[in-house]
């Protein structure tokens, strides 16, 4: 997952301040404002392997409690992920 993120998204070195200190973040989107996310947290939530599709990622959290479905749809629209 981490390798997939680093190949598809802009990385902000040390851009995440979490409970365990600083770690790298990636740029999720820029609209309506800059949104970044912890690479480690995303990998922990959605699996260590690169995703094959948005549907696969959504299946991890079918009720969208974590609030990522909108971003996955944006990635599909951008051609980053197949639907």
């Amino acid at each position: 997952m981490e390798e997939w993120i680093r190949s598809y998204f802009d990385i902000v070195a040390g851009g995440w301040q979490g409970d365990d200190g600083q770690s790298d973040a990636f740029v999720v989107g820029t609209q309506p404002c800059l949104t970044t996310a912890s690479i480690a947290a995303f990998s922990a939530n959605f699996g260590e392997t690169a995703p094959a599709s948005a549907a696969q990622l959504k299946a991890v959290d079918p009720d969208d409690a974590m609030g990522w479905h909108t971003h996955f749809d944006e990635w599909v629209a951008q051609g980053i992920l197949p639907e």
Partner: protein
Amino acid sequence: MADIMLGQLLHRPTIDPISGSSPLPVQLSGSYAKLGAEHIEARFNQSIAAGAGITPVSIAKPIVIQGLIIYTNGTLVDKMFVAPSIRKANGTWQVVGSYGWSSGLRLDVPYSMGHHWFEAYKWDTSSKNYMIGLRSAAAPLVCSFGFRLEISNLDTVERSVTVQINYRQLEV
């Protein structure tokens, strides 16, 4: 009257709030800066996915902040992290404080000191309506080169926040 008072503030010798001792890289003076006529009040309501963060405010211009409030709409938020930054003369951003909803508020020295009016406050946690902010108790906060605010959601579920900022842009 408020403008006159703020004008006096801008003419006053200022200590660099970052180092605590050296003068500001660029002193605000009557010939350099005057208050803009436009008073900007902006309000953002934004959802934040679990493990994500947003930057609802990023202003790379000289401004004075008259009020900044961050709150949730009746949602218990116990793992949000708020980091305000001030832009320095060289274009880099200096985080000047941090606010963890669960661990209480913490503000870096000297921003916790009264002379910079960067005061954190928090209330109404009993009814699960959380609000924190930077309160201008005595005078606005002068940001000579800009101001930025980042909010991270360290929780395992999506959270939403509302940010309201009142500021004036300084004209050059």
